[in-house]
């Protein structure tokens, strides 16, 4: 099953709809709304049922002729109406699975029910379009560190975003990627102006971020860069994932 992130669709009445994830394959298609907000998403989910499935082909997805399976995905239960809900907290929970029409997808989801999500390993994707400034900074840390490679020719904004999106780079619609580039540019400007101003610059002619000659590959300088990046990304002993979630 192939998928696209934040694709634009029209309903049969011509209204714009941009669900978070849309996937389609031979066994059917689905739409997922991912949210951390506490209000019900029932109206959004209901509206996705009226998306005209012929537009799937516009995004390189398998065309369909029936309404999709609709899901919401959350950190804890909120009543989103008569739709399947995926709870992604300490363990994966599948609620209202009887609503899923695609039997193959249903069987796979039921198999995954209860999967342990505590201490879930990092995944290779470090940037996403909906990220907030501090999340983008975290997502950029190791991409910025690569600028200090002796063989680095620098990185353009486009390269930085593509590397952070990794395998999602080709799955994200052009407009969302463009918005993400703007956000990344803002955070990089802050890094250069306030945190690593002697070590990283933006070369206007090349259109690329580069390291300066001040960087030397020795433990003292590397630790200094580590601290500067930690500070920039707002990482401290109190800011663990659980505490961040509890503040939402």
């Amino acid at each position, binding site marked *: 099953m192939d998928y696209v992130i934040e694709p634009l669709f029209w309903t049969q009445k011509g209204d714009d709809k941009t669900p978070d994830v849309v996937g389609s394959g031979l066994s059917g298609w689905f739409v997922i709304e991912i949210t951390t907000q506490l209000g019900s998403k029932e109206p959004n989910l209901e509206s996705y049922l009226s998306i005209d499935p012929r537009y799937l082909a516009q995004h390189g997805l398998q065309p369909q002729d029936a309404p999709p399976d609709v899901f919401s995905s959350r950190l804890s239960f909120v009543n989103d109406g008569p739709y399947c809900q995926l709870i992604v907290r300490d363990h994966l929970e599948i609620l209202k699975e009887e609503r899923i029409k695609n039997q193959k997808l249903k069987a796979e989801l039921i198999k995954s029910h209860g999967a342990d999500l505590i201490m879930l390993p990092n995944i290779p994707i470090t940037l996403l379009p909906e990220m907030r400034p501090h999340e983008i900074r975290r997502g950029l840390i190791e991409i910025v560190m690569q600028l200090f490679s002796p063989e680095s020719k620098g990185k353009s904004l486009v390269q930085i975003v593509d590397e952070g999106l990794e395998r999602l780079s080709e799955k994200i619609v052009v407009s969302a990627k463009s918005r993400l580039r703007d956000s990344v540019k803002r955070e990089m400007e802050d890094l250069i102006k306030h945190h690593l101003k002697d070590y990283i610059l933006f070369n206007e002619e090349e259109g690329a971020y580069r390291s300066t000659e001040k960087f030397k590959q020795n433990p003292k300088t*590397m*630790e200094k860069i580590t601290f500067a990046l930690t500070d920039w990304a707002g990482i401290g002993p109190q800011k663990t994932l659980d505490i961040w979630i509890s503040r939402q």
Partner: protein
Amino acid sequence: MRQIQSLRDFKELLQAGFESNEESLEAFGKTYSTQLKAYLIESNKPAPDSAQSIGSYWRKIDPSGWYLNAESSNRLFLDATRERIWILYSLLEAIESDFFVENWIKNTNGLDSCWLSRNHLLHWETLSGWSRRGMGLRFSDGLSPEENSGNFSLKAWHGANRYVPRLDEILNAAQDQFALYSIRYQKRSGGSISISAEWYSNGKITINRAADVDEVLISIAEMANRYADSLEEATDLRNKTMAPFEIDFSQPISLDAFSDTVSKGRGDMKLWLVEIESEPDFKRFKGIDLHTWDRVLLDVGPDFVYLTIPGSGCVNGAPRLAVVQGEDNSGKASIYHDGVEVFS
């Protein structure tokens, strides 16, 4: 001595050394020619010509990809016939030879040692004619302060185990807990020893005795091919799924000491990382594998590490982390990807 001009010249040079050592062993009970050493090197370079540094200018002696180090007076040779795994052959004395390899790798971005897992080292036990003659175990406790460190180092030559009751049991117990850093094997053909060699976890091989140069080169190439297959398999798995490499250790990891080491980019681990989350028994890091400057994401628990390598990054960091962390601090290591044991 005339300059080596071809692969055949190189083989004749090695063969003469083996025969000279066998003769002196028979006559005087010891060898006098420098023993052959080989080093398996993981390369992300297209050819040795692009891995030049001080003291390492390579001249081709065979079109298939064999080179002579132009400044070594016929003592350093390179088999670069494989894309990812090169084999450096050395007739230098051990200290000089190790120093050269260590510096060449350190000063050349994209080169690394081949970090042989326990299963790689034990590979010869599955082949007929080979028998184990010894092993080396190491636990440096390198992350503890010197006054509190509990080192363990053992090098045991096999053969007389029956004279000491329970010796086998003790060796097996130690082998189960500590990292295996070397292993010595012997191959017998026609009633006599055809190869006696020691294999190290950092990809070094010492040929103590040998009868036939082609048999020696093929044995070393066998391990290079196995390692190349392991790298290809691990890269393929990484490309197909989101799963990380999981490295399990038999001893606990000192999380604070680990964090302190990697934040400065120090040591053989070659990792430069930023700690982004911390719990009493878990830390999360993001950063760089200094071998290739590829991105890496690390989750470190009490006795395990999850290593995620985004994009097309080199996966040699997984066996390096297993071997270096295992020998330094965390004992026996096994590497898995999505439940499948890799580098085995």
